[in-house]
């Protein structure tokens, strides 16, 4: 590789070079150990490089090599079941190569270059294909990994079995061959024909979400909460139980032990919808809090590019990121190292626009081949001090479609998932109620009203009870409070370590129906003057 220049300055993760022929956002290899970096600023005789790895030990005078491409991911069959770092380095092969600690070292290919794949295609040579047309597919675990034509051309030859991912699958008379593997710049959204309105729900298996704050396929949701409110456990539960084809899970600046836990669970558990191994539908990106911050910033883009790739095959993809605050903090660290003008709380002023454009990569799309695919995002937020007025939560609130507020008080009462049922919202609610009313139960919408009403009334009664004492309440109040308590403890809360961790919409509906029917019955009996029954109910409350 040709040397482009030398290191002339070093400061934290930034390197200054005298290399002249660089372009903005181009990738470079830095120093003897070939650390990966990106050009972030250009001046007439020097350039500033943001290095994605630990820069300690770099020496002035070491070489800089330009790579001529922006930060990119490798896409192709074999992504599913892998665990990568924020730069798409495969972590399991890396551990095999250099041991359990991550040190600067070999650059391993993200995908297995030697593995042979069987390509199934019904196309014959001399057929004219259009850009985006399906050429054929690989069998990747339980998924059909579809390959599409990159250009409109006439096929010269088309290959079949035993293909490595860099071999040409189809050659054309007057265009470049199509290969299984492709390189895509992570910060560029993959193209689609059209973006559609979200219309169908993404069933998470969490009753409080599916029932009160439903999420749509192609939608975006945020989960802000202070520490100990169960963000990660909720994200893990959704990753395990959501009704989607593919899950991309990003551990962005969070704990290493959690990733180990997740890996273990995915390897053991089966997808409740299809009965297949969960690991077969999951890609993990792990850039834990002690790994370099610049790679943490890149990690969500690496993940979203892979997610879009599967979306383009007509799959429903769910991207979970834990947590977007750590991404924003990485952005802040980088920005401050570059001595940019700080905005609110030191975050760069482009935080909000950056987040908004990231959110806009979610959606239901008509792919280039005309299929429908979707990318849904659920992002957790870790507001400092649990204070939701901070810039990251506020910027996300403006861009997201669903706000699931995790409540410290509920968490302290061991009510999980600790989603607050007063301040959360979902903009998809109306459409999703329509869907559930049609598909699951005609009373769905009405039940939601009844459930909300009971919780609301309980809130008022609790205030009254605080003044007059529980004994000062009327009999009908007691019945209402019993019902509301049942909703809270048996319906809204779900223990993620038991069988109850996952609930299908008909079960969800059945459960709330029963609680409300019992409540109605108790009220009727009270009205009928059946005081004996009433006493029993009051006792049950204890």
């Amino acid at each position, binding site marked *: 590789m040709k040397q482009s220049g030398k290191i002339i300055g070093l400061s934290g993760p930034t390197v200054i070079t005298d290399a002249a022929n660089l372009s903005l956002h181009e990738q470079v290899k830095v120093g003897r150990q070939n650390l990966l970096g990106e050009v972030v600023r250009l001046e007439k005789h020097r350039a500033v490089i943001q290095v994605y790895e630990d820069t300690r030990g770099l020496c002035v005078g070491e070489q800089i090599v330009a790579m001529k491409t922006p930060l990119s991911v490798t896409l192709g069959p074999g992504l599913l079941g892998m*665990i990568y770092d924020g730069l798409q380095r495969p*972590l399991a092969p890396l551990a095999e190569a250099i041991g359990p600690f991550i040190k600067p070292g070999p650059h391993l290919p993200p995908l297995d270059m030697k593995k042979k794949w069987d390509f199934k295609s019904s196309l014959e040579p001399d057929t004219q294909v259009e850009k985006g047309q399906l050429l054929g597919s690989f069998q990747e675990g339980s998924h059909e990994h579809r390959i599409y034509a990159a250009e409109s051309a006439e096929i010269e030859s088309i290959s079949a079995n035993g293909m490595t991912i860099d071999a040409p699958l189809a050659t054309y008379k007057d265009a470049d061959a199509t290969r299984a593997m492709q390189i895509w710049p992570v910060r560029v959204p993959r193209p689609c024909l059209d973006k559609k309105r979200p219309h169908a729900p993404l069933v998470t298996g969490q009753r409080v979400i599916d029932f009160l704050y439903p999420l749509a396929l192609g939608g975006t949701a945020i989960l802000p909460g202070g520490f100990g409110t169960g963000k990660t456990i909720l994200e893990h539960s959704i990753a395990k139980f959501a009704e989607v084809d593919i899950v991309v899970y990003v551990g962005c600046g969070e704990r290493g*032990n959690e990733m180990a836990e997740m890996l273990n669970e995915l390897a053991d558990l089966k997808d409740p919808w299809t009965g297949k191994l969960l690991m077969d539908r999951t890609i993990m990106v792990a850039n834990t809090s002690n790994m370099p911050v610049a790679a943490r910033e890149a990690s969500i883009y690496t993940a979203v590019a892979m997610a879009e790739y599967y979306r383009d095959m007509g799959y429903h993809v769910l991207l979970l990121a834990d947590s977007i605050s750590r991404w924003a903090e990485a952005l802040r660290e980088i920005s401050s190292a570059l001595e940019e003008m700080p905005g609110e709380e030191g975050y760069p002023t482009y935080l909000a626009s950056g987040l908004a454009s990231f959110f806009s990569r979610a959606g239901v799309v008509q792919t280039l081949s005309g299929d429908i695919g979707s990318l849904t995002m659920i992002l957790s937020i870790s507001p400092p001090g649990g204070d939701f007025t901070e810039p990251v939560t506020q910027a996300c609130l403006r861009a997201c479609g669903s706000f699931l507020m995790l409540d410290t008080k509920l968490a302290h009462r061991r009510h999980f998932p600790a989603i607050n049922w007063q301040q959360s919202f979902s903009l998809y609610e109306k459409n999703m109620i329509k869907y559930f009313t049609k598909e699951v139960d005609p009373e769905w919408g009405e039940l939601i009203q009844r459930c909300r009403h009971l919780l609301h009334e309980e809130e008022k009664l609790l205030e009254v009870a605080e003044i007059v004492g529980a004994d000062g309440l009327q009999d009908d109040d007691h019945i209402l409070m019993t019902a509301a308590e049942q909703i809270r403890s048996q319906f809204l809360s779900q223990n993620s370590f038991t069988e109850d961790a996952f609930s299908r919409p008909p079960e969800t509906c059945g459960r709330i129906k029963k609680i409300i029917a019992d409540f109605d019955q108790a009220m009727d009996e009270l009205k009928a003057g059946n005081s004996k029954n009433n006493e029993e109910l009051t006792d049950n409350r204890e």
Partner: protein
Amino acid sequence: MRLSEHIYKTFTHIKTHLVFVEKVQEVMLGEIVRVVMPDGRQVEGEVLSIDDGTVLVQTFDECTGLDIHHSAMIFTDRLKQAPLSPFMLNRIFNGSFQPLDDHPLYVPDKWWPATGYPINPASRERPRQFIETGISAIDGLNTLVQGQKLPIFSCAGLPAKEIVGDILQYARCPGSAGSEKGKFVMVFVALGLTHHEYAFYMETLSRMQTEFVAFINLASDAVVERLLAPRFGLTAAEYLAFELGYDVLAVIADMTNYCDALREVSTSKEELPGRRGYPGYMYSDLASLYERAGRIHGRSGSVTMLPVLTMPEDDMTHPIPDLTGYITEGQIVLSRALQSRSIYPPIDVLPSLSRLMQHGIGEQMTRKDHRSLASMFYKHYAKGRDVRVLEAIVGREGLIGKDAKALDFADDFEKEFIHQPGTSRSISHTLDVGKDLLIRHGLETFEDEKPETEKSL
């Protein structure tokens, strides 16, 4: 790689711990330098940044007496590294890994960088098995698990020091069979100690029965050394765990002094201050310490971390406890209210939490009934605490029978289960104390002790 040390005398400016030298060729980021003062004294420092031959160096110690024209800087061509050897056991070092105990340094077996390397998430083994601290409120209800990081949140004036002393004395690692003793060692890092605390800890260390390595940084020592000491401590812990196969418990006290040192150094570098003046990268910096706890596939040892911090103004949303809580796996919270009722250790079990507890308890690890007993303790104690609020309004006489019973239980639970001055309990003893309380108050019945329950009613 250079063949000799380089000496430069081209100082341009000096600002407390920061020294600028110009026209330097071939210098490495993070390189260790020695600054030679006009009177011949030498101070170590580290290269922070380089710009076109001008090098910014941060010194690890006071530079009083340094001047621009008669001082020299020696570039050593190496990074900050820890001298490691099995002989470091039972030794006491300062924050720069120099012996404090009047014995010479051993011949190092390995040199590892002080900052360590991140553990590959794919190589991590999930934490399991428990470490017995001897404190019932921790072992019974917020069990510490090997490979976990579990901080103690204290407030000024609460006996965090004594609790650390007890843990150093009594903590043990019962091994996988529950009886067989594993290879267990403690790494103790003390940061910013006053002389009073120093005397206390030195006395504790002299009575230690477990093997240990101690790193002591005094309040009067250089601030930069306070940032180094925990890194050296954890490098030593990683060496003992992953190279020699020990189960290591690293106790670090007090992280508040660490964070304040970080703020001080950051401000002197004229970095942009974040919340409460702490640098914006404090989360990542703390994570680079806390995340070094863990277990690794195919290695027998483990690093478990128990950092102690003091919450300024007793405020859990202060950046230090807040960022710590976001990284660690739970927290042990000390309470002023318990302290005022002379409960020792004053651990409030309600806001305390060990997230990994479920991986360290149960049959083969602690006891079969641990899980169910712990949730009973928690349930009844929480109920009693709720009633205590009510009692403040209606008075004890105004309570109905069930509530009064819960309140009595909470009182006795604090006095007999949580309170354990100067003693250590085995996990089985801890569970029995709590179980007896449940039976005595008639709150739960157990198959084998039913008659006794009825008697107490």
